[in-house]
């Protein structure tokens, strides 16, 4: 009723129509023939209607060859006023029964309207063998079956693993029936899928086509699916019990169709999805199953703080895709920081196209000690089904600076958590050193080198050498005669070296010898004796307590020196005088 309810139809009695015939005179004249069916079994009946939109006279039906008129002709006239416009229709109806099988033609009918004769077009009817349900009445179920269709529409029949697929269940309703209510009998369980229902608020009737015919349809259910397995996956059908109003062939007193209410179980056919696995080529090592299009970020609430204050580090992924179906990457936080378990937050809306929104893990971090703590960059990978490629996003490194904090020398003991390793810190981070103290990089090790062994062993070898020398000196000290000679030689070397050089050269030798003797006295007595007489020298020597014998020897030598200048002296005598000189000096040396 609701379908027709919008029209205001006024049924008028025959008498009323005949009273105002002139009003239907404008517009085209239509006269046609309608068959209830163009194919029927021999045991069925055919209804033929001749309709016209203007009243006419002299109606002549066709001959209906091959049929027998079971009923008719029956006339019906209707006239209506819609928005001040009047419409009129009149029909002659016949019910025919075929008499034989075969192809028959319903011939032309004619009528005279406004002085002109109009004819209908002939139509072919096929009469076939008898059917099971001979009475031409279609059952309510037949009508409903033709007019109700439940269809599951897939947004994508070959998605990738974890790519969103939307299933829309539409109930197509034909023009003849009206749906009053429905009840779902069996809600499909989407095994191997992660599913989320998108509730349909109001059922709005839309117009569409189903198999080429115009239908009205209602969206009953929308589901977003994320396949969790690759391969061919079946969707279980959705079954509904639909309450419908179906028109019957019966009419009420006013000629309106009488509707009966019935229920019908409809189900959407099984659908299969060919789920493609994610490509293995180029799959990042840290891929955690995220499929879609995402943004990734790691942030901290502050970057500079004092120890024992807290800060929040947030790892966030936002975008479109299977947000609920993967794990967020974990940040790597220096082991010296105290980190608490993360707090998971999500803000996800499931839209027609899939999940959209953001998920975040918030870590509370409490630094205990001073220092700089870098949180290194972490990466997040996802598969973009649109470009069919993997995308890896990197977060930025964050440096946390703890400006003030306790000294941690006693903190190592306090650090009870085994997971943390805090190295004790000094009060300050020291400035660089200012003195370079550079030395060559290439340096040979001292230990084991030749110098090392030399330095180690040479002193030890010194011991026997030194002892040897020491012993030798002892021996020398004990040898008196040798010593005397030695001393004489030494003195002679000192004072008589010139004389020794002139040995053999008489004049020069004795001059040098005399000079040497005087020099000796000069050095010993601090008196220049060269101008003194021999007596004077003798006196001085006596004064110094020199032996008589040695004194005479010294004087004799001096005399010799003087005498030798004027008398011949042999080489042997010269040698003798030199030796006597050195002997005398060494003897005098002991006494002076």
């Amino acid at each position, binding site marked *: 009723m609701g379908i027709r309810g919008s029209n205001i139809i006024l049924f008028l009695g025959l008498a009323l129509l005949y009273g105002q015939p002139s009003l239907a005179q404008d517009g085209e004249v239509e006269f046609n023939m309608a068959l209830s069916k163009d194919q029927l079994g021999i045991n069925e009946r055919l209804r033929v209607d001749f309709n016209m939109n203007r009243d006419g006279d002299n109606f002549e039906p066709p001959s209906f060859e091959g049929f027998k008129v079971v009923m008719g002709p029956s006339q019906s006239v209707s006239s209506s006023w819609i928005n001040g416009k009047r419409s009129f229709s009149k029909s002659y109806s016949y019910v025919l029964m075929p008499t034989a099988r075969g192809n028959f033609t319903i011939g032309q009918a004619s009528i005279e309207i406004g002085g002109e004769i109009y004819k209908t077009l002939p139509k072919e009817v096929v009469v076939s063998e008898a059917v099971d349900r001979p009475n031409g009445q279609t059952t309510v179920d037949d009508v409903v079956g033709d007019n109700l269709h439940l269809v599951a529409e897939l947004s994508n029949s070959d998605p990738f693993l974890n790519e969103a697929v939307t299933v829309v269940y539409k109930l197509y309703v034909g023009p003849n029936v009206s749906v009053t209510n429905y009840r779902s009998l069996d809600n499909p369980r989407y095994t191997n899928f992660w599913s989320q229902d998108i509730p349909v608020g109001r059922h709005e009737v839309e117009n569409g086509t189903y198999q080429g015919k115009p239908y009205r349809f209602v969206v009953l259910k929308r589901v977003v699916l994320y396949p969790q397995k690759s391969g061919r996956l079946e969707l279980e059908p959705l079954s509904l019990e639909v309450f419908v109003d179906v028109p019957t062939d019966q009419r009420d007193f006013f000629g309106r169709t009488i509707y009966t209410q019935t229920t019908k179980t409809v189900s959407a056919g099984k659908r299969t999805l060919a789920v493609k696995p994610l490509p293995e080529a180029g799959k990042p090592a840290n891929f955690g199953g995220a499929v879609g299009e995402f943004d990734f970020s790691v942030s901290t609430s502050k970057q500079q703080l004092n120890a024992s204050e807290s800060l929040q580090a947030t790892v966030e992924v936002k975008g479109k895709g299977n947000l609920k179906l993967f794990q967020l990457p974990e940040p*790597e*936080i*220096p*082991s*010296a920081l105290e980190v608490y378990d993360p707090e998971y937050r999500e803000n996800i809306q499931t839209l027609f196209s899939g999940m959209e929104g953001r998920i975040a893990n918030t870590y509370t971090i409490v630094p205990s*000690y*001073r*220092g*700089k*703590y*870098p949180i*290194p960059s972490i990466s997040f990978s996802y598969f973009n089904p649109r470009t069919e490629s993997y995308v890896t996003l990197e977060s930025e*490194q964050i*440096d946390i600076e703890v400006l003030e904090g306790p000294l941690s020398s006693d903190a190592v003991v306090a650090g009870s958590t*085994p*997971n*943390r*390793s*805090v*190295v*004790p*810190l*000094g009060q*300050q*981070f*020291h*400035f*660089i*050193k*200012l*003195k*370079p*103290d*550079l*030395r*060559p*990089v*290439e340096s040979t*090790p*001292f*230990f*084991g080198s030749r110098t*090392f062994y030399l*330095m*180690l062993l040479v*002193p*030890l070898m*010194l*011991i026997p050498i*030194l*002892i040897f020398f*020491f012993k030798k000196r002892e021996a020398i000290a004990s040898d008196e005669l040798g010593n005397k000679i030695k001393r004489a030689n030494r003195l002679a070397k000192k004072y008589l070296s010139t004389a020794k050089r002139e040995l053999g050269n008489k004049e020069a030798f004795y001059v040098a010898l005399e000079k040497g003797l005087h020099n000796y006295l000069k050095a010993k007595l601090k008196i220049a004796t060269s101008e003194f007489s021999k007596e004077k020298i003798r006196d001085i020597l006596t004064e110094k307590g020199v032996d008589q014998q040695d004194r005479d020897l010294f004087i004799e030598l001096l005399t010799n020196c003087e005498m030798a200048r004027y008398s011949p002296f042999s080489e042997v005598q010269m040698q003798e005088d030199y030796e006597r000189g050195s002997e005398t000096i060494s003897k005098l040396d002991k006494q002076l």
Partner: protein
Amino acid sequence: MSIKKVILALGLLTVSLGYPQNEALFSEATEFYNKGEYTKALENYGKILENGQHSAALYFNLGNCHYKLGAIGPSIYYYEKALLLSPGDPEILNNLAYAENMRLDAVQQMPQSELAALYKKVVSLFTSDQWAYLAVGLVLLFVMAYMGYYFLRTANHKRMALVGGLFALGLGILCLVMARLQLQQTKNDNPAIIFSKQVKVSSEPNTNSDVIFTLHEGTKVKVIEELGAWEKIRIADGQTGWLLAENIKKIKEF
């Protein structure tokens, strides 16, 4: 001739100027550091190293620059190097602690017996070279004491020289042993610092084997063995595994 002489003179000049030039680079780097231009300071220090000179101070400053730039691995690496040249320097130890707190890995130190700790402490008191110098000095002392014993006259002095000499000799021999032990220890000890952000340590030196554990930048490891491009490492808690040599940098390679 004259040109050759000039070239020779120039060559000699540059050789003799080599050291002052490095000193200039060093002080320039100090200014850069103070102004916060750490990368420039790093360049200067790098040049000094290229010129074939180094020092604990240089490595310490390199470590500081890297710390300021937030590079965990290099800063720890250079502090450790500085410590190698100047063991026990409190400033280096302090800043190394700062750098070590940036690390991601928390490796528990393996417990050590008290005796082993004492032994290690004593042996590590000096480097092998320092032990060697000490031994040389003590031997010299012994020689002097021996001579004294020989030359001194009074019995008391002689006795003192004898006792002192024998004591010096004993100590000298001990020092030699220590130098030898220390050398052995440093030869066996081949520490390295992880430079890659993340390294998977596997059970065998190939890519097919299982990953035992994962290490991060800045962690100190000890290299035990080598096979091709792979190195067997041990971490402080005693676990061992193989990793590719490109991921680590050995502290003792100058």
